[in-house]
């Protein structure tokens, strides 16, 4: 029952997203053909492009043909690259996905250790140090942190290049090396948020009655931490970490531009500059859909782990 309801919401949200994207790009004032070609373009060229893009057809028909194409896995041709949009996106995901997942993994590892450390040293020097780190991590813009890393490692130490990506055919390790600084950059603000969440979740559970009971019956501090506190505190933490996936994807858009990585973020900016609306429309929908899929999976997993969720919703 929970699953069915949640799945329905998921479908409705994706549908809603597609409508909003369509409205924003195609129905609102402004002529895409004119924007693509520029104001100085001759009227005949604009007319021809309008026909090519199918803009002379009514809006509902255009929407339905877009959605129909999505179901068949056909996203149309990119106007600038003249290749199917699906191909473009698949290519770019080879860079964006490792970057996003690497940052998620690194941030999770860092934040779990720091968060648990801070909570077990509550109100001591170590705790304040961790709080300071997370305050700073939240205030540092990730793209600036990336620039600082480039200054340190590429300009001063000259250990790496300032960006770029060789492509997976050029060797696995060279690619990993190219992704190292971007992953670190992306993981900074992420670990700052996750550390805060972990710390307060562990602290909250540590105040529960059953934890006091466990200590009272003579269980050691360490055993209580592992068996009672962490087991209960980490479920919400992992959920929130999953929900942060949207932030990570948004982050990759920025970070790819800092390190000149040919990922989804670079693609979408190129598309905007070239007025390639076909690419913009589909990439935004796919990014949104990825976020929604992850949120859906996280919700379902959470319900599996914690039966209270299933009953209450």
């Amino acid at each position, binding site marked *: 029952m929970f699953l069915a309801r949640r799945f329905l919401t998921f479908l*409705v949200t994706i549908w809603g997203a597609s409508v909003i994207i369509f409205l924003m790009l195609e129905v609102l004032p402004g002529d895409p053909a004119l924007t693509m070609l520029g104001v100085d373009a001759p009227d005949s060229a604009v007319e021809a492009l309008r026909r090519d893009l199918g803009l002379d057809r009514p809006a509902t028909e255009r929407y339905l043909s877009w959605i129909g194409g999505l179901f068949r896995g056909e996203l149309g041709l990119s106007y600038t690259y003249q290749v199917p949009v699906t191909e473009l996106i698949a290519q770019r995901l080879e860079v964006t996905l490792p970057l996003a997942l690497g940052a998620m993994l690194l941030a999770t590892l860092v934040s779990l250790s720091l968060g648990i450390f801070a909570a077990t040293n509550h109100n001591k020097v170590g705790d304040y140090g961790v709080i300071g780190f997370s305050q700073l991590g939240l*205030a540092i813009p990730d793209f*600036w942190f990336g*620039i*600082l890393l*480039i*200054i340190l490692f590429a300009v001063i130490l000259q250990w790496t290049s300032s960006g770029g990506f060789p492509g997976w055919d050029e060797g696995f390790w060279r690619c990993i090396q190219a992704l190292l600084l971007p992953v670190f950059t992306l993981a900074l603000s992420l670990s700052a948020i996750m550390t805060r969440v972990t710390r307060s979740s562990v602290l909250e559970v540590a105040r529960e009655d059953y934890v006091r009971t466990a200590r009272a019956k003579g269980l050691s501090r360490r055993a209580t931490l592992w068996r009672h506190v962490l087991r209960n505190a980490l479920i919400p933490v992992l959920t929130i970490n999953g929900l942060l996936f949207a932030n990570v994807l948004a982050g990759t858009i920025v970070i790819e531009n800092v390190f000149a990585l040919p990922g989804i973020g670079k693609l979408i900016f190129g598309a*905007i500059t070239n007025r390639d609306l076909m690419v*913009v429309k589909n990439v935004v929908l796919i990014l949104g859909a990825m976020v929604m899929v992850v949120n859906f999976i996280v919700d379902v997993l959470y319900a599996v782990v914690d039966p209270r969720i299933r009953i209450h919703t």
Partner: protein
Amino acid sequence: MSTAATDPDLAGDGAPPQGFIRRAMRHRAFVIGFALTGGMVLSALVSLLWTPHSPTEIIIANRLKPPTAVHWLGTDQFGRDILSMIMAGAQTSIVVGLIAVSLGGIFGLALGLWAAARRGWTEDLIMRLSDLTFAFPVILIAILLTAGWGPGITNAILALGVINIPIFARLVRGTGIAMWEREFVQAARSAGKGRVRITFEHILPNITSVVVVQATISFAIAILAEAALSYLGVGSQPPDPSWGRMLSESQNFIFLSPLIAVWPGLAIVLSVLGLNLMGDGLRDLLDPRLARQR
């Protein structure tokens, strides 16, 4: 506003409680945050009247100068004075933050109050719509607006405002619903007051502290997002001064003059840190119950 209507637990609603300033002065995070935020606001205000040099005047002979007695933070690739640009850039950050937060705050507050008062399908609709905006990171929304309407600071502000609406709506709805359950609201209802009157007389005054804290934090997020959007070229456009755009321009000269990529970033960090610390401080000061739990 009748003081009898406010919740005695929530010191700090409506009028500041006695000794608020004294307590605030003792709260270290709040004092640091307040000072940093004050510094940002002050430099923006001063830059309206005076900057050490013109933030837009191009003197190519002066390009990429290191910090000197004349140009304290050096000059950029066009010979513009960096300190002056940073001071003027504070204006952009503050304007964007103010408008975006007000936009999100006003609409979000209205929707949240409405959802809390009406419940039922209006509430459902509002919450589903806010789910939708949560699925879209602000950068994506801004990119969409830019793709449709062309790049510019207005679109960036709009995107940031839109993303703030559901954040405030959810917060206000949650706090509002809890307020509707309270005894003093029940009493007002049995006294025959209507939903609208109760919302304005009892609910609104009791949720201001939550909204103020959120506004501070949203302001900080808006500054970060504006910087990111301007860095990407879809935020403020030349010649308007902007910290984010200064950073993107500086990256082209990073091997010649790495320092120019440091200053604007520092300005962002200090502003955001200031607002976040001030927000945390305000939460402790305005809502003692939360402070006790921490």
